[in-house]
């Protein structure tokens, strides 16, 4: 391969002879050679294009940029049938110089500006959440006087999508987790000869905590993300603006049916998860601990207090509201780009799971305090 350039003294200056492939494909080699040009290059430089083959813009631009960096400035001329596009590049070069000399904002001002923008943005976000809650409350309030606002067909669709189709996965996971808990619990309790307490462990853990918590996490992953993505795409397509322009309220059409659907569905799914959890515990007790089913159910009745089942179930609607509101709110926040859509969908899932667990912790404290 020929060396793409050679530097020769020429009268009172330099002659830069260009050889070989000066197309874009040759740029990686040319780039390396340009970087090794001596820093002492000064005075007049003549670029000789006689032996440059198939010259293209990118390598020529890299050459011009390299020569322009010299201090003090070089006096560059081109010779030997230079490519036709050099005039264009010279023109772009002047434009680039003009564009770059305009800027240079001081760093401190930039930093303060960033901080200020961030603080204002936080305020705007907090206000956004409050406005969103307010809008939902108004729609729900108004719907009691105007039954058409309940959007029954939309509600039914969401009940089907978030509820009915979630039954298999919720049932399977509840069953498996309770089998795991019973299995691990049995190993520990067997050391004290207290095998029978596996029944207490499984029933109380499932009914109080695991049934509702697992269901909520699954629903947050399935439906919270779907809410954010569906509404986000509608935002990107300007569908929500179209609804507004036709005098319809996107909160009423899109948000409230989803929130209501989850409030209806999540307790029902929780009941299914509870039942499957108990079934899993019962099955493991039968196979692993040889506790027959009648004995299991008898022990189950003894271990339960009247509130055990309800203390799990009562949390479900609250979790449902959290999941649905986070999902729909993040969806409504999507603006401008597919990137935002992906980011906010992720935020919706992470945040709704976090909120569910936080709320669960608060419930635990509350229930202990009131002895529920």
């Amino acid at each position: 391969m020929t060396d793409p350039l050679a530097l020769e003294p020429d009268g009172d200056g330099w002659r830069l002879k260009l050889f070989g492939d000066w197309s874009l494909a040759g740029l990686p080699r040319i780039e390396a050679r340009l970087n090794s040009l001596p820093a002492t290059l000064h005075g007049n430089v003549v670029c000789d294009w006689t032996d440059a083959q198939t010259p293209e813009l990118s390598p020529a631009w890299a050459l011009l940029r390299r020569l322009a960096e010299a201090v003090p400035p070089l006096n560059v001329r081109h010779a030997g049938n230079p490519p036709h596009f050099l005039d264009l590049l010279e023109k772009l070069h002047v434009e680039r110089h003009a564009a770059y000399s305009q800027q240079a904002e001081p760093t401190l001002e930039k930093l303060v500006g960033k901080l200020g923008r961030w603080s204002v943005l936080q305020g705007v976000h907090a206000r956004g959440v409050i406005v969103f809650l307010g809008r939902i409350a108004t729609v729900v309030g108004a719907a009691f006087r105007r039954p058409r606002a309940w959007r029954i067909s939309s509600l039914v669709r969401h009940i089907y999508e978030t509820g009915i189709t979630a039954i298999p996965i919720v049932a399977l996971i509840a069953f498996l987790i309770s089998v795991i808990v019973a299995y691990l619990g049995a190993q520990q309790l067997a050391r004290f000869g207290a095998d029978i307490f596996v029944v207490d462990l499984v029933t109380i853990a499932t009914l109080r905590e695991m049934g509702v918590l697992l269901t909520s996490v699954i629903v947050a992953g399935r439906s919270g993300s779907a809410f954010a993505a569906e509404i986000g795409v509608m935002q990107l397509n300007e569908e929500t603006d179209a609804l507004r322009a036709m005098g319809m309220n996107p909160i009423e059409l899109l948000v409230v049916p989803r929130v209501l659907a989850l409030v209806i569905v999540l307790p029902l799914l929780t009941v299914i998860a509870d039942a499957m959890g108990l079934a899993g515990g019962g099955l493991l007790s039968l196979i692993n601990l040889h506790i027959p089913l009648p004995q299991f159910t008898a022990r189950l009745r003894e271990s339960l207090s009247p509130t055990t089942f309800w203390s799990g179930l009562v949390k479900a609607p609250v979790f449902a509201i959290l999941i649905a509101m986070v999902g729909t709110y993040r969806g409504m926040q999507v603006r401008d780009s597919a990137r935002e859509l992906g980011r906010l969908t992720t935020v919706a899932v992470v945040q709704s799971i976090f909120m569910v667990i936080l709320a669960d912790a608060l419930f635990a404290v509350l229930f202990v305090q009131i002895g529920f």
Partner: protein
Amino acid sequence: MLDPNFNPAIRVRGLHNRFGAQIVHDGLDMEVEQHEIFGVVGGSGAGKSVLLRSILGLRHPDSGSVEIYGRDVESLATTDRSSLVQSYGVTFQNGALISSLTVAQNVQLPLREHYSLSEKTLNELADMNLLMVGLVPDDGAKFPSQLSGGMIKRAALARALALEPKLLFLDEPTSGLDPISATAFDELLLYLHAQLRLTVVMITHDLDTLFQTCSRVGVIIDGRMITDTLPGMLTNPNPWIQEYFHGPRARAAAMEAGKDGNG
């Protein structure tokens, strides 16, 4: 590599495309000469975008052949895709800028993929391509969602030009632009066409663009293409062409172009 001096630049022979029972192309022929700006027009659903996708090697035609610089696109698409895609630049209708990358990163994307260059050179090449389409280097730091419609079209053009193709495909380059931006885009296209000695294939519904820039026009009617110069098209007896080129919008655009031509 493909020889960019081969004439004709594009040759399509007997192209057939159908979707189920719907026949889109029924033996379409098309030839694009070196260094011309070739406009493709046709009614909605006439198969302009399908034709473009077939030429680009993105769609496998049901039958017929497509050649770019004398090489069969279908065989290139399987054997030497990188030569094929480096021989042309494309802008899509809505820009199709990757929304997770800045404008400068979008321009650098094909360069990064095909060549190993230093960050400094990549930044300088991004500057060059952005300046070339009339953007400023500062625009490079923006994300596509922060750009106006006209800037998106320009940025897409900068990305299409990054690999220095001699063949440029533009899908509705001026759709959705206001007349001032559209005219500016036409002028930019003519300028770059002259400076970079490009061959341009353009799908457009913008009659102003058609009259200002195109040297020849291909009309897709009933799955075939009728090709002629603009003056030739104006006297073509085909009823659809008559309606297209003699409607009130076309008359205004033709008058404008005529005025420019005389003045």
